[in-house]
């Protein structure tokens, strides 16, 4: 009996060893490109083009970072991105939070049609809407402006946000609002004082989703913004990564500066984000 047990335990240990090995292999594949960027960003200017695979290169230096911040408009690009993104997320979340409430709590003619419209809007290829949006923005004389970008971005994540928020509101018992009504709030007051504070996790997910979508967007920015002063960081980095190999270091440095905060926020919020996503997908 004892011998059998130990055999089973051995097999289990071997299994776990294999699993660890497999996961580490995959994890390395996931992390390595990031480490490579890090490594390139530290390389001195004359060794950018090298066949070296070491993470910390010989003669590591921060020269790329100082050059990036000093010689290019990188900070300005970050600032542009931040403004556009914050405005977009704010608008997106505030519109979604009320619309989702209507879908979650009320019965009204056209509810089902509205939900289907939302879902089917996800089927429209984003690439397809760039052209008319571009022409609209041109016609409104908003080319190369923040406003044009915000308008183009503001509803792109709306259906998804509404979906996530509706799913979350559905889990909040109705009796809470009813108690608030009896206590003396209006319907809107109940939403404001009870539902919104309770939905902070879902609101943050929606906000983050809006934020990351707009923050990482490239294609619309490419056609709307044309002066490098107005560029978002995605456009700026793409340009740096262009043909001139000398700018590799600056591209890598910029990538690191952008990626680290985004990564931190994402990892910190991933639990919420994931539960939101799975919630959405289960209900979808």
């Amino acid at each position, binding site marked *: 009996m004892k011998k059998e047990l130990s055999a089973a335990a051995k097999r289990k240990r071997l299994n776990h060893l294999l699993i660890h090995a497999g*996961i580490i292999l995959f994890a390395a594949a996931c992390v390595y*490109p990031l480490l490579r960027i890090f490594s390139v960003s530290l390389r001195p200017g004359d060794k950018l083009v090298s066949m070296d695979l070491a993470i910390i290169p010989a003669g590591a230096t921060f020269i790329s970072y100082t050059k990036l911040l000093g010689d290019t408009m990188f900070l300005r690009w970050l600032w542009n991105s931040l403004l556009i993104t914050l405005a977009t997320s704010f608008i997106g979340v*505030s*519109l979604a939070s009320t*619309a989702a409430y209507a879908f979650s709590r009320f019965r009204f003619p056209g509810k089902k049609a509205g939900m289907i419209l939302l879902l089917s809007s996800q089927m429209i290829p984003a690439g*397809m809407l760039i052209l008319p949006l571009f*022409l609209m923005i041109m016609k409104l004389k908003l080319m190369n402006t923040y406003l044009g970008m*915000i308008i183009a971005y503001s509803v792109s994540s709306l259906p998804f946000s509404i979906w996530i928020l509706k799913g979350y509101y559905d889990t909040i018992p109705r009796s809470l609002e009813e108690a608030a009504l009896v206590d003396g709030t209006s319907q*809107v007051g109940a939403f404001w004082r009870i539902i919104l504070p309770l939905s902070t996790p879902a609101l943050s997910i929606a906000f983050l989703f809006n934020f990351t979508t707009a923050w990482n967007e490239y294609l619309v920015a490419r056609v709307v913004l044309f002066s490098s002063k107005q560029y978002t960081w995605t456009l700026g980095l793409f340009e740096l990564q262009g043909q001139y190999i000398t700018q590799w270091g600056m591209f890598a440095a910029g990538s690191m500066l952008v990626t680290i905060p985004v990564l931190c926020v994402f990892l910190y919020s991933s639990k919420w984000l994931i539960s939101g996503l799975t919630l959405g997908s289960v209900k979808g």
Partner: protein
Amino acid sequence: MNILTSIGEVSWFILLVAAGVAALVGYLYSHFKFYSRSWFFPAVLAVFPALALAVFGGLLGGYAFKLWLSFLAAEAAIAVFFRYVVKGRHTVPYLLLAPAFVGLALLLVYPFVFEVYLSFHDLKLTTIMMWKNTGTLPFVGIDQYIKVFTTSPLSETTFWQLLLRTLVWTFSNVFFHVLGGFILALMLNNSIRFKGFYRTLLVIPWAMPQVVAVLAMRGEFHATNGFVNIVITRLLGFFPFLSHLGVAPVQWLTDYPLLTCTLINIWLGIPFMMVVILGGLQSISSSYYDAADIDGASYFQKLRYITLPLVRPVMMPAVTLGTVWTFNNINVIYLVTGQAGGTEQADILVSALYKAAFTYNRYSYSAAFAIVVFAMLFFFSVFYLKSFDAAKDER
């Protein structure tokens, strides 16, 4: 000063939207006599936009005033609509929905309709000035649609080649996303040490800004400096016999652009699937496995008869979504091949239509192309949802 202006410009717009929401909320307060504050609504309606205009209108002038006027008009129209058209108890939900749906109508539905309009007219580099000045375009009927199937959107590839390429691209990506995601999720779903840490590392490709991730990966596929070729060269150094098997450094970006894009996109997409499937796996009660153990099921039998069917409902929506996303993925392909002088060997339908519009300035042609692509996607979705519904009914 620059910074101040930019803040001003943006906050002005936010205030505008906030004013819209505030006005609607204000209206709710007055409509329901819980708080008999009849002054609330008009005050909000007037004060917010006026403030916004006073503070920031001066900074911008011109179009700001026009936008503000049209906003006021829209607001008034909404108010009238609710006072006189939608009477009774459905007012609240409609009001709550109004801002979002107005936004969607203006920025999703209207562009869509506009795209259809464009596809029947002729907007190109030579007519765009005319359109800008007069707003009219020459009508060409279905000419653009005929061109979609007869002429090439790019300089080399035809529509049918693009279609084939798109299907291959979509299928191979989704297949490997699901396969990789499933394997990783299965491995992570054990009670092993460092589980949280591993998961964190594994979602990094998804968490990284896509532009950075794609551009960095593109760098790794560079012919001389890229990691992939460096590793191949070193392997050849250690095991010279490999070169007889045809292993050699490759010009990834110029010779195999579609393969490169696919590899990069697989790398990008696996974490999402992994997370969704892991969520599904974790929601399966362990008592099923206990029962199967007692029944004497092997590991693969448990996988086949318990895990797969129970993960399916979680996975199917994600797979559908993933298919649509992959089909519509311009980002990866454009970022890898889109620079001036980039290859067209990797283009799929959607990236071709983007290039047709913005590299070749064939706007109307691109619009017609987009409608065709949309129609295909639409029929796929309808067909797919139907079959999915049918499968649901059977159970």
